[in-house]
């Protein structure tokens, strides 16, 4: 299976996921990965990620196919949590396996930029007992623009 795309409502073990992914792609000369986790130490007590079932997983699957079409990869993994998380909890794991490292780095970078600002997730943070919705940052859109995607339909 070239694309391993999952929407998870329970905590996952990124180390085990990455080890299994690398094991499944032994022909690949390089495996890159990015792990996003709930930032600690800045008063955030919890993070809550919402999704919309008819769009979110289909969108992630389309992103996986885009990545596979754009770079010569042996495989791509995109796992994303939804629900309530605590500081230090894993939110997202992206990994790419390729013959050569540059393709693997770029593919994982591309997937993360698109998850941040073009996938169907809504994030809120709890600070001092109050939930606050998080708007996308200008930097997220600047990151996305680096890839010169075709304009949205």
């Amino acid at each position, binding site marked *: 299976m070239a694309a391993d795309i999952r929407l998870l409502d329970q905590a996952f073990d990124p180390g085990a996921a990455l080890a299994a992914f690398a094991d499944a792609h032994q022909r690949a000369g390089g495996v890159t990965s990015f792990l*996003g986790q709930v930032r600690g130490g800045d008063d955030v007590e919890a993070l809550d990620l919402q999704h*919309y079932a008819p*769009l979110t997983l289909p969108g992630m699957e389309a992103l996986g196919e885009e990545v596979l079409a754009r770079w010569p990869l042996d495989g791509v993994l995109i796992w994303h949590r939804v629900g309530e998380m605590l500081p230090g909890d894993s939110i997202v794991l992206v990994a790419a396996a390729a013959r050569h490292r540059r393709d693997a780095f770029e593919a994982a970078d591309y997937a993360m930029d698109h*998850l941040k600002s073009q996938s*169907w997730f*809504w*994030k809120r943070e709890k600070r001092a007992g109050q939930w606050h*919705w998080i708007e*996308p940052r200008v930097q997220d859109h600047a990151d996305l623009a680096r890839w010169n995607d075709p304009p949205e339909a």
Partner: protein
Amino acid sequence: MSVRLVFLGRLADVAGVSAKEVAPGPLTDLLRGLPAGLLSPRVKLALNGMLVQAEGLVLDSGDELAFLPPVSGG
């Protein structure tokens, strides 16, 4: 049968609920009974899982219309 409206992210706070059943009809009529601010240029709409434009939209029985504010994943 009715139309199901789904409000994602901060729009659930604006609407006061995360989902609501309403009578079928033009979107403009449906919005009359709801708080202002649900529709804006930055809010996208999905009808039965497909993105649609607000202009001229008419909802039928059994439809689900989702209001999607700007996303923030990762």
